[in-house]
């Protein structure tokens, strides 16, 4: 049974390979750069789709989690362990395999943290922050949750912008690549094809994990929360815990994207943490059909690819905001919704059938009205 679930994944893999062959054959390999970046942004959208489309909760702070992942990994990967040279700490780290040698811009050799340490630290930090924010905030509903998560995103943006060692307005640049054996996540031109496949591999793994979740007992519980939180609770679903778990999971998807895209780009800046980026992710989930992971993946990579290619010019942010308004007005269930639009609209608009009391026992006959 689970095999059928993975067939479309195979189709995505085929498209990924075909695209690479086409651009290589036509001498337009430069497209791979934006296709790689778009893949990572697609991962953020897949995670947000789990939260919005399945658990029925919104987050306008996904860019914040992306930034926490990216910045943590960037800081640790660019750290110079020179100050602890010869001290016991360095030896402990070396024994753990957490130290790698690298060359700085002038060709000097220095010791730095291994990328896996940055990855683990970034994920742990993201999960911790998501829990810390999520525990109080996920109790809120609708507009209140949207505003609270927006507030969180704005805080992360201002913190990044105002913190010296995070590079303030310039961000962090010259972040070394993320090397695992023969594979290196970096922007080196010679590694363009390799990175394209690495990015899409990560996205496909993320997609498989997300598909597994929505087809599981937890996924069904999430959809039930979306349907009626009170009824889900009465059926034994610990709704608070499941909403929080999905919030953290979607934050981790954003963080993974932030980590790898930072290494691919060789840096990260505050523009990745803006509220407008968060709005963009929400807009893309909406276009994709809210509860459609494939819509999230397709729209997430397509729209970001167009945006990265500069198709929307200087109106980039305006285009995404416009898309959000247009979707809300004309196709609230998205362009690639699984439930047909008319059925969904009917569900949203028809009031719940109110039980018509056929016969009610007389409740306290009004005074003065005698009995027959």
């Amino acid at each position: 049974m689970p095999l059928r679930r993975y067939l479309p994944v195979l189709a995505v893999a085929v498209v990924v390979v075909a695209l690479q062959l086409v651009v290589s054959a036509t001498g337009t390999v430069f497209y791979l750069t934006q296709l790689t970046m778009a893949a990572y942004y697609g991962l953020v959208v897949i995670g947000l789709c789990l939260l919005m489309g399945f658990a029925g909760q919104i987050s306008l702070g996904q860019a914040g989690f992306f930034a926490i992942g990216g910045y943590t990994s960037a800081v640790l990967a660019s750290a110079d362990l020179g100050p602890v040279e010869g001290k016991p700490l360095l030896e402990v780290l070396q024994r753990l395999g957490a130290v790698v040698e690298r060359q700085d811009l002038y060709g000097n050799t220095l010791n730095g943290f291994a990328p896996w340490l940055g990855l683990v630290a970034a994920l742990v930090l993201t999960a911790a922050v998501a829990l810390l924010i999520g525990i109080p905030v996920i109790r809120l509903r609708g507009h209140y949750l949207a505003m609270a998560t927006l507030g969180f995103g704005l805080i992360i943006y201002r913190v990044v912008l105002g913190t010296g060692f995070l590079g303030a307005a310039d961000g962090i640049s010259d972040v070394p690549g993320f090397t695992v054996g023969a594979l290196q996540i970096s922007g080196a031109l010679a590694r363009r094809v390799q990175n394209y496949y690495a990015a899409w591999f990560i996205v496909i793994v993320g997609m498989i994990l997300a598909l597994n979740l929505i087809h599981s007992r937890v996924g069904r519980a999430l959809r039930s929360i979306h349907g009626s939180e009170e009824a889900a609770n009465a059926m034994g679903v610990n709704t608070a815990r499941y909403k929080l778990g999905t919030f953290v999971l979607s934050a981790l998807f954003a963080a993974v994207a932030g980590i790898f895209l930072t290494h691919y780009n060789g840096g990260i800046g505050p523009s990745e943490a803006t509220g407008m980026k968060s709005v963009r992710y929400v807009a893309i989930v909406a276009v994709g059909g809210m509860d459609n992971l494939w819509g999230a993946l397709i729209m997430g990579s397509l729209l970001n690819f167009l945006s990265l290619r500069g198709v929307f010019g200087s109106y980039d942010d305006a285009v995404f905001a416009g898309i959000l308004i247009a979707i809300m007005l004309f196709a609230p269930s998205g362009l690639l919704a699984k439930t047909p639009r008319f059925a969904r609209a009917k569900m949203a608009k028809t009031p719940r059938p109110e039980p018509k009391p056929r016969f009610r026992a007389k409740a306290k006959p009004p005074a003065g009205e005698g009995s027959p």
Partner: protein
Amino acid sequence: MSAPLLEVQALCRAFGGLKAIHDVSFRVAAGSIKAIIGPNGAGKTTLFNLIAGSLAPDSGTVHYDGRAITGMAPHRVAAGGICRTFQTTRLFPAMTVLENVMVGRHPRTRAGFVSGVLSLPWTWREEREIRTRAGEILSSLGIGQWAAEAAGNLAFGTQRLVEIARALATEPRLLLLDEPAAGLNIYETREMADLILKIRGWGVTVLLVEHDMSLVMDISDEVLVLNYGRRLAEGAPSEIQHDPEVIRTYLGGGHA
């Protein structure tokens, strides 16, 4: 009377100045059908919410199977074996009928986030069992033909049956039914009565709130009458029908 399955003692709950439930005590014997009746606003649904954990009482206790469950969270009450339906049905409209009932298997199954995301092989087996069991419950209630339909598209009476099927899927020992016959026609009400008796036959104790007197008097072993949040009377249906206090305030003076 054997040891009660549910024992409510001196339960109180006020909303501002309104005493929705005041000093209410009663017991539900295992294997019985008990009805709670009373005029609109008598506090019947509030009482359900207090037992099921959606509301916390101001004072008083609720014991289930000898254990205190006062103020316990609804999902834990459900896991403990008390499940409820709602006065206005609350199905998951976008999910199919089968999926709705599958959600009811939640407290009896265990796949979590990690095993779900990784789709571990044992969870496939569990999913198959959930699906099979949900299908069996639908068939036993005679609504198996709607399994693949979106729950929101069903007729009202069928929705109510699905809600009962969903509650039964949690394997409750005590089933709380909030006005199961509201909005049903006379034939459907008759079928509902048969269904409730059938459910009791499966070993499930039933506590119901209902306005339909014929239904209540036909199937209940005991009736509790509430009025303005207080206990007015309690006893067998025949006693209640002849209780002068009940007749005066509730059944209507004409029957006296």
